[in-house]
């Protein structure tokens, strides 16, 4: 096909073992399947956003997919300058005629891993570690709390954030230390939504003989047998689809909000964690999933009112 796709990662970097890496995997999958090459770029600072967008657009790349909500403002400007170029942005809504906005219902996926955590916990205390303290991450936390509490009123959920600067995505030392502090407070399952910081969280959980829960990509393999599951956010699928539909000439603009129903989020089961999931847990989580898809259970979206109802 006659497409020149391009992907641009966010500050965390291509190999963050989570969000950006998911995007990269989607692009790679597209490349191996279709044999079509794509261009990519990792920005190093915010000032580069518009610059790289214009450059890629100016070079005739389309579609240009960008990973991360931080791209919104730049995209808003540049998409108007290149009306013939197709853009896709993940994690944010930009309402322009040539932009596809892909957002996820992370609260739904988080709810599921919350259910698993609540059931796996012996101490009835589980915990959450976020990266940067921003609403998007609270969205993860809130869904998780909802899921965990759904397994019993007495389940306690600890919640903490690594920091408030972008470095918070990249501080495994601190992540590990926060995890240990939560273990000391009784937690025995920890879910992270903290990018690179999460590597330290999962490590600390494994070291302490507790369970970790990965995020975005399937992180079960990072500490085999020590990661209960991973909350999958199918960024890879989103990127792959964007590339693929464009290649097939079926690229659609507008908002797509991917939840459990669309298979945009989910939880990971593989050889690494099979043994950790009891049949009851599997049953409970599948039921929750079905309920959510059916609409009988509504998972609260933190970003709708910036507060968590659980």
């Amino acid at each position: 096909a006659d497409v020149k796709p391009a992907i641009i990662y966010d500050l965390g970097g291509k190999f963050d073992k989570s969000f950006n890496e998911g995007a990269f995997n989607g692009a790679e999958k597209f490349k191996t399947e279709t044999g079509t090459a794509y261009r990519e770029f990792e920005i190093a600072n915010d000032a580069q956003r518009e610059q790289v967008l214009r450059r890629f657009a100016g070079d005739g790349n389309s579609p240009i997919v960008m990973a991360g909500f931080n791209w919104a403002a730049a995209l808003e400007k540049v998409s108007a300058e290149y009306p013939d170029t197709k853009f896709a942005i993940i994690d944010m809504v930009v309402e322009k005629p040539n932009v596809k906005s892909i957002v996820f219902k992370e609260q739904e996926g988080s709810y599921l891993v919350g259910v698993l955590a609540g059931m796996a916990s012996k101490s009835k205390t589980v915990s959450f570690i976020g990266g940067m303290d921003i609403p998007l991450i609270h969205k993860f936390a809130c869904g998780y709390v909802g899921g965990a509490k759904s397994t019993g009123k007495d389940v306690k959920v600890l919640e903490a954030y690594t920091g408030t600067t972008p470095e918070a995505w990249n501080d495994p030392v601190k992540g590990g230390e926060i995890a240990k502090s939560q273990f000391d407070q009784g937690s025995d399952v920890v879910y992270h939504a903290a990018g690179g910081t999460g590597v330290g969280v999962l490590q600390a959980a494994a070291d302490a003989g507790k369970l970790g829960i990965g995020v975005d990509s399937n992180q079960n393999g990072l500490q085999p047998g020590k990661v209960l599951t991973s909350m999958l956010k199918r960024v890879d699928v989103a990127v792959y689809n964007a590339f693929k539909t464009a290649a097939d000439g079926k690229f659609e603009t507008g908002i797509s909000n991917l939840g459990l129903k669309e298979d945009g989020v989910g939880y990971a089961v593989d050889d690494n964690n099979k043994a950790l999931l009891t049949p009851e847990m599997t049953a409970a989580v599948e039921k929750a999933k079905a309920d959510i898809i059916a609409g009988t259970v509504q998972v609260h979206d933190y970003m709708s009112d910036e507060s968590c109802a659980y």
Partner: protein
Amino acid sequence: MSNPYAKLPVWVDYGLIPLINLLVAFLVAGLVVLLVGENPLNAAYYMITGAFGRGEYLGFTLYYATTFIFTGLSVAVAFHAGLFNIGSEGQAYIGGIGVALACLWLDRVLPWYGVLPLAMIGAAFFGALWAFLPGWLQAKRGSHIVITTIMFNFIAASLMVYLLTRVLKPMGSMAPQTRTFDAGGQLPKLDWLMGLFGLNIGNAPFNISFLLALAAAFGCWVLIWRTRFGFEMRTMGHSPSAARYAGISESRITIIVMMISGALAGLMALNPIMGEQARMQLDFVQGAGFVGIAVALMGRSHPAGIIPAAILFGMLYQGGAEIAFEMPAISRDMIVIIQGLVILFAGALENMFRPAIGRFFAGLTARAPAARQAKGA
């Protein structure tokens, strides 16, 4: 404090030696490029064409340079008073508050030229405020300014995050940034200036804060060399004991100079906030305060040296981005290395080649008429 080496012609002192130091810094950076498995010559080519190859690229180069002129001046002014302000980074960051407040308040009411003066005052005020505290602590409590300004950089980061995530961020938005300003909060580009040279600015955010930076550079020159206050601060910078003797209050100078330095750093915020992004976002300073150290060292703390040094670093930033586009193995962190190397060779090792150069020139002038070093009395 005496000049440890024989006198050299001015152009050698201020031109040749910095140039050689710079060259060595680039040579070492070239080695790093080799280590990564890329061709340094290619990198150099991309860097130069990427920085100057097109009107747009030049526009970006000058856009970055604008920022670095402000921070370079900030560091240099403090240098003249013998103060090492490592805190320009934090001061610029806090200075952003002033710009943002002015824009958020008035961008829908006034045109840009109405907002700009207020934004300038705000930037300078907040930057000065953030420098006042370390200055005051040094003057009155003797806490070392290098250490306190480092601490204040960290504190500024925390404070700004708090403000941007809790206070200034519009409801419902996720990114830690203010809302986008309307026309009143956006500075006009200098496309006409580039146009004079037949260049097309393209999308480059090269804006009128560049002219402000040039004015600031001139102002600094006047301040340092043409005012009584400048005289006092240079006296203190060269010899605190002579300053005391001359009745110059060390604490007064320290505090005022730090505030001027902080104000200059704060003004830097105009460029990215009003000149480019039209909003204030997290970490918009992007290390420019630290680049200022390198710029001041390269430019020998003289405005006339700081401007070219700032353009040089603008070139590094813009050209470096182009390298990163063209050579996947090299990311923008290359620039951080080069920056460090420039600081090392132009700063800490500035005298490494001086003896050899001195000897060379001594050889040249040996036969010149008896040196003007007339013996007195």
